[in-house]
C-alpha cells in the first residue's frame, strides 16, 4: 500500500506544480498538456495500473481513479487524457492474456511510459460503438486495418491506439475485436479539427487510422466481453472521478469566495453561505456516488457472472448519467454563489473554464444514448442495480 499511497501523493505534487499552472494555457490554446504528460511519465504514473510483476505500480482501480480525480481537479483535459489512457491500460491488463501483451505492458507501458489512446467510434456507424464497418485483414501472421475515426483523443500524441474492428471482412458489424496498433505501424491522418467549448486540451481530432501489426496484437477475447466487463465500466468510473475533480475545484472556489466575503464583515454570515451549504450537500452525493461505485466495481471485477449481468450494466450507465449531471449542478451552484465575479472570463476564480468543461461530460458519449441503452436493458432486467 505504501507505494500506491505514493502514487496519489506524487500525483498531488504533479497536479499542484505542473498541471494546474498550465491549465489556462492548455485551455486557451486547445493544446496538448505536454508538460503534464512529461511530469506524469517522470513519476511513472502512466503505469500505476500495470501489475508489479510486469514492472508497473500494481495499484487498484479505485486508487487510479483517485489519481484521475486529483489531475482533473487541476486541469480537466489532463484528467480526461489520464483517464482515457488508464481505460486502455485496464483493457490490456484484464484481457491481454497472452505473451505479446505482457511484453507490451512491461516494455512499453511500464518501461517507456507509453501513452495509449482509443479509436472505438467510426464514421458511418451513427455513434454505435458496438458495431464496426472496418475489418481486420489478416495475411501471413500480419494484420492490416484502415478506419475512419471521427474522434481519437490525443491521437497525435499517443504512442499506440486500441481500435475496434470487425473480426474479418466477412464478419457481421457486431462481431468486433480490439486491436493494439502501435507506432511506427500506426499512421494517423487528421480529417477534422478540435475547437470545442471544453476539454480543449484533449485534442480529440478525427483521423483516418491506418495500422499494420502482428495478428498476435488482436486481443484474444471478443470486444463484446471487453466492452461490458472493462471498457464501459472503467470508462464511466474514471470519467466520473475526473468530473468530480471539476466539481471539487468549483466548490473550493465558491468556498474561498464566501470566506473572503465573511472576512469583510465578521459576525455576519453572508447570504451566499447558505447557497454554499446547499452546494456541499450535492457535492457529498457526488463524492459518495463515485466512491461507492469504485468499491462496487473493485469487489466484483473478477466475478464474470456479476460483471455480465444487465443490472450491473444499468448501474454503470446510471453512474455516468448521474455524475455528468451532478458536475453541471455543482459548477452552476458555485457560479451562482460567486455571482459576477465567477461569471467573468478573466476572473481568478476560474469558474468559466470549469463550467465549459463540466458541460462536456453529458455530451461525450451522449447521456441520451446511455439512457436509451439502459431503458432497453430495463425491459428485461429483473432487479434494480
Amino acid at each position, binding site marked *: 500500500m505504501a507505494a500506491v499511497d505514493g502514487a496519489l501523493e506524487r500525483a498531488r505534487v504533479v497536479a499542484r506544480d505542473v498541471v494546474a499552472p498550465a491549465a489556462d494555457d492548455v485551455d486557451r490554446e486547445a493544446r496538448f498538456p505536454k508538460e503534464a504528460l512529461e511530469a506524469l511519465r517522470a513519476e511513472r504514473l502512466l503505469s500505476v495500473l500495470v501489475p508489479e510483476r510486469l514492472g508497473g505500480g500494481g495499484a487498484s482501480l479505485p486508487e487510479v481513479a483517485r489519481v484521475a480525480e486529483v489531475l482533473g481537479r487541476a486541469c480537466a483535459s489532463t484528467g480526461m487524457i489520464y483517464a482515457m489512457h488508464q481505460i486502455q491500460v485496464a483493457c490490456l491488463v484484464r484481457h491481454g492474456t497472452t505473451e505479446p501483451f505482457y511484453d507490451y505492458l512491461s516494455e512499453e507501458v511500464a518501461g517507456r511510459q507509453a501513452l495509449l489512446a482509443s479509436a472505438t467510434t467510426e464514421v458511418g456507424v451513427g455513434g454505435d460503438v458496438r458495431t464496426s464497418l472496418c475489418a481486420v485483414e489478416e495475411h501471413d501472421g500480419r494484420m492490416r486495418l484502415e478506419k475512419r475515426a471521427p474522434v481519437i483523443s490525443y491521437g497525435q500524441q499517443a504512442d499506440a491506439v486500441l481500435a475496434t474492428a470487425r473480426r474479418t471482412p466477412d464478419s457481421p458489424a457486431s*462481431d468486433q475485436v480490439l486491436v493494439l496498433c502501435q507506432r511506427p505501424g500506426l499512421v494517423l491522418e487528421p480529417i477534422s479539427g478540435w475547437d470545442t467549448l471544453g476539454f480543449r486540451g484533449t485534442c480529440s481530432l478525427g483521423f483516418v487510422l491506418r495500422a499494420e501489426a502482428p495478428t498476435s496484437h488482436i486481443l484474444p477475447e471478443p470486444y463484446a466481453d471487453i466492452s461490458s466487463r472493462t471498457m464501459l465500466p472503467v470508462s464511466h468510473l474514471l470519467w466520473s472521478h475526473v468530473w468530480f475533480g471539476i466539481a471539487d475545484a468549483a466548490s473550493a472556489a465558491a468556498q474561498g469566495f464566501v470566506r473572503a466575503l465573511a472576512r469583510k464583515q465578521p459576525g455576519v454570515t453572508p447570504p451566499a453561505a447558505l447557497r454554499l451549504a446547499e452546494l456541499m450537500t450535492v457535492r457529498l452525493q457526488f463524492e459518495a456516488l463515485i466512491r461507492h461505485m469504485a468499491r462496487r466495481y473493485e469487489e466484483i471485477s473478477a466475478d464474470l457472472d456479476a460483471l455480465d449481468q444487465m443490472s450491473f450494466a444499468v448501474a454503470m450507465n446510471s453512474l455516468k448519467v448521474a455524475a455528468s449531471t451532478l458536475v453541471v449542478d455543482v459548477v452552476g451552484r458555485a457560479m451562482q454563489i460567486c455571482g459576477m465575479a465567477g461569471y467573468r472570463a478573466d476572473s481568478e476564480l476560474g469558474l468559466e473554464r470549469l463550467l465549459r468543461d463540466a458541460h462536456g461530460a453529458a455530451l461525450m458519449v451522449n447521456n441520451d444514448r446511455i439512457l436509451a441503452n439502459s431503458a432497453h436493458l430495463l425491459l*428485461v432486467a429483473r432487479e434494480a442495480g
Partner: protein
Amino acid sequence: MAETDDQIRQVLSEHAKLPVDVDSLGAQTDLYAAGLTSHASVNLMLALEDAFDVEFPQSMLRKQTFQSIASIRDALDSLVTAAAS
C-alpha cells in the same frame, strides 16, 4: 427437444435480426459471431419469454445464455423443469 429448437428458430427469425438465414445456423453456432447485437438480444429475450411463457431470472440475463440455440434450449429446459418440480 427438436420441437423446442424449431420454436427457438422461429423466434430467432422474427426477432434476432441476424444478417444470415436462421436455418443455416447449427445448434451450437455462436449467435453473436453470426451478428446478434446486444440490442437485438434484449428483444430476443422478451420474445422468448412470450413464446415459452417463462420469465428468465436475473442470473440468466447474461450474454452466455443466448450464445447459441443449444444454450437457449438449456436455459428454457431448466426453467420448465423448475416450474414442474
